[in-house]
């Protein structure tokens, strides 16, 4: 089943939250809506579920039109066959784990009950079937909520910040387990998150939402390698910003020239460089001269803080290996052009 949100608009009072947002999720795909808090991504999820009435646009689930603002059509949530997992899980405290999971299932045949018990067993919750939600740990509550959302076999699954309430040490495990379940069942899933690492880890396709608009969509690799805006580039971590002026189709900076096709000659431009794109030059005479201000071993990589002549702010470099220059030493640095992005204007303000 595919999910298609077409031209969704929404406002709370005078505040415009969603402005002509279109998102499609193909059958069996896990799509991720990524954006900072307050960008309207949870509202979009609630509109898909029918918990919110959009001011404009259409929602189509599996070829069935379930909401069309222009036609005044709004199917209530209970008629949409969607699963929704809330950020706080919203388990019913007065029901046992089994009754929570069975809440949306109308058929109580022995076969169905066996299927639900099997699902609990698979997620390591069978021992808690008769317990109440308050005895579960955060990760267990999360798994219970996921099983509950999947139990009625919905056409699509919507997850709102599914892993953000979990302890960091638990997160990766729970995430892998959940993802394996979704992939195995080939559930069409739309996940909302503000965590780029999480989005990268689970998404087949990313939709970047910024101030109520989709600013870029694509596979995680595409977006990481070709961010369309400085703010998208910055989603995946802090960036080094270096200014320059366009000369002969390239931005000339103290760290070298970067291809800037399509930019006007003489325009000021900014180059954003990922810290992992900074290279220590092996050959003398190559790259730009820099002085090491600080060096920290982070484990498999070392973070160097570098002062580069002609650049006001110190630059960060993540370099492999445990042997590294000491503070005060002089080095020469180059840049991997695949991990440097050119934007018009002052990227530091973006």
């Amino acid at each position, binding site marked *: 089943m595919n999910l298609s949100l077409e031209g969704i608009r929404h406002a*709370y*009072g*005078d505040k415009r939250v969603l402005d002509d947002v279109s998102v499609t999720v193909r059958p069996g795909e896990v799509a991720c809506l990524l954006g900072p808090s307050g960008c309207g991504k949870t*509202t979009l999820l*609630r509109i898909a*579920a*029918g*918990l*919110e*009435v959009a001011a404009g646009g259409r929602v189509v689930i599996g070829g069935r039109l379930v909401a069309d603002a222009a036609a005044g059509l*709004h199917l*209530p*949530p*209970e008629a*949409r066959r*969607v*699963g*929704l997992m*809330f950020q*706080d899980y*919203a388990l*019913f*405290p*007065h029901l046992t784990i089994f009754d929570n999971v069975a*809440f*949306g299932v*109308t058929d109580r045949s022995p076969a169905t009950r066996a299927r639900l018990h099997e699902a609990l067993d698979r997620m390591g919750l069978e021992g808690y079937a008769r317990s109440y939600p308050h005895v579960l740990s955060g990760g267990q509550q999360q798994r219970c909520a996921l099983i*509950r*959302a999947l139990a*009625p076999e919905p056409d699509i699954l919507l997850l709102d910040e599914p892993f953000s309430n979990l302890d960091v040490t638990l997160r990766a495990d729970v995430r892998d387990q959940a993802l394996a379940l979704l992939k195995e069942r080939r559930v069409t899933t739309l996940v909302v998150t503000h965590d780029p690492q999480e989005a990268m880890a689970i998404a087949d396709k990313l939709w970047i939402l910024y101030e109520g608009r989709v600013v870029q969509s694509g596979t995680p690799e595409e977006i990481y390698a070709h961010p369309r805006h400085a703010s998208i580039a910055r989603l995946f971590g802090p960036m080094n910003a270096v200014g320059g002026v366009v000369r002969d189709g390239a931005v000339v900076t103290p760290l070298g020239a970067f291809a800037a096709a399509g930019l006007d000659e003489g325009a000021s431009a900014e180059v954003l460089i990922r810290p992992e794109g900074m290279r220590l030059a092996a050959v003398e005479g190559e790259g730009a001269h820099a002085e090491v201000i600080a060096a920290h071993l982070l484990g498999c990589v070392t973070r160097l803080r570098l002062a580069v002549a002609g650049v006001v702010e110190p630059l960060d470099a993540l370099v492999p290996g445990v042997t590294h220059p000491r503070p005060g030493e002089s080095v020469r640095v180059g840049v991997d052009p695949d991990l440097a992005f050119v934007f018009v204007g002052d990227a530091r303000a973006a």
Partner: protein
Amino acid sequence: MLDHGARVSLAPPDASAPVLPARAWRPTWRPTWRPTWAGVVTALPVAIALLFTLPISAILLHLLLPAEGAAAHLATTVLPGYALTTLQLGVGVGIGVTILGTGTAWLVTLCRFPGHSVFAWALVLPLAVPGYVMAYAYTDVLQFAGPVQTALRDLFGWQARDYWFPQIRSAGGATAMLVLVLYPYVYLLARTAFLEQSVCTLEVARTLGCSPWQSFRRVALPAARPAIVAGTALALMETMADYGTVAFFGVQTFTTGIVRAWLSYGDRVAAAQLSAVLLSFVLAIVLLERHSRAQARFHHTSARYRFLPAYRLRGLSAAGAVLACAVPVGFGFLLPVLVLAGMALGVDEPGRLGRYLELLRNSFVLGGTTAVLAVITAVAMAYGARLRPTPLTHAANRFASLGYAVPGAVMAVGVLIPSAAADNALDGWMRATFGVSTGLLLTGSIAALVYAYLVRFLAVSFTAVEASLGKINPNMDGAARVLGCGPLATVRRVHLPLMRPSLLAAALLVFVDVVKELPATLMMRPFDFDTLAVQAYNFASDERLAEAAIPSLIIVGIGLVPVILLSRTIARSRPGAGAQAVP
């Protein structure tokens, strides 16, 4: 108020209107509803609000009628006297409950002395005793032939006119009775306010050089002031509403005036106009209460609830604290109950047992019916506002719960006037059309009485239901909807099970209030239909105090049930344990 209510109801439900954020818990999104649901869900609270503001509207309409005959006479002769006595009672009770309630609350929350944990819950017990029952008990103790005066005469060999003794049947006596039963309102709210005060602010005060007494006066007391004012306002509303105590003591207030104008003179206009004047007093108190509650909301800057710094009292100060707490419990609960029990044991009329069972049954029928209806109405109102949190539904709920401020006597007048008018209209129409007289259908019926109770006590159940519903995470609603439940199924499968304890508590509170209610019952009960409160009042009015003791004791016993529940909550919540929320 009528005008406002009518305007609210006529405004079309405007689905596109922006929803203003009026409450902290309210979700920021608009719940989704089919258009048909929107209509029902908006119309229901408005209809309830209209039905529930009818009595007040009826009274206010009578202000417009010309006063004639007895009414005009009444206004010029007795009004100043009523106003003066009512003010006197109000000031006396206000000062008394504030000192007694705040003082005891501070002692049991912030000081440690022998028995402080027992006093923490025992101080609530006087809440179970209605003012008129106190009046019966103390009259028996303190009257000329009572044990105290007799003992004094025997001891000193005095004769009847040799000595001065305070006259219990006076405005001062009524004030004392009301202070003793009403101070728990202030005690409860002040205690909560002291407990909720962040330990940090008190500790900061100490480090900034305040002594324990100074930190109480400069930090704890100002922070708790909105709660104390709110508690005092509640006690004052009860004082305004009191009929049994003042009537028994022969003190002339608005309530006695209203009941006399209605029952003795049959003067509808005079009763309505006295009611309107009393309502203006009550309105002032309501505004005071609302104002202080609004201030109480944003007080706490720090959410750390640890064990409060407790001052260990020793020697004389400990003895003083014990005495200060023992006096209100002793005189407000133990003594009157013992006196009543003594009087009841002196009555030997086993033949009357059937009569008491009948009274008990009548009180239970009225209380039970009202309690069930009040809870159902409250759930409908609160859930309507949850589904459609518009200014309209909120205004409707505010109006519908105004009745709690209306004294019983006023409520009776407000219900009787429209029901008599409806009866007359129906009777006239039936005579003209079919030549049949229907007489009085509504007036003097149990239905009208239950309606009056419902309007008066709806706020009790609504507050409990609204608070309980507000604690349920709105995502529960969303989860249930997405999992296939319609709005009604969501209530049935999610909200009602989660709210069950609160609904039971709400029903219990309404039930007890109805059983204790006197003036409205007195004015509206069907012919030959007596309740415990009415029978106790009638016995006492006939100076048959010993016989009044048995129904009085039963009322206290019933009133004890919610008080014990409350006391258990208090005993379980240790200072500093914090009031952490439910599901």
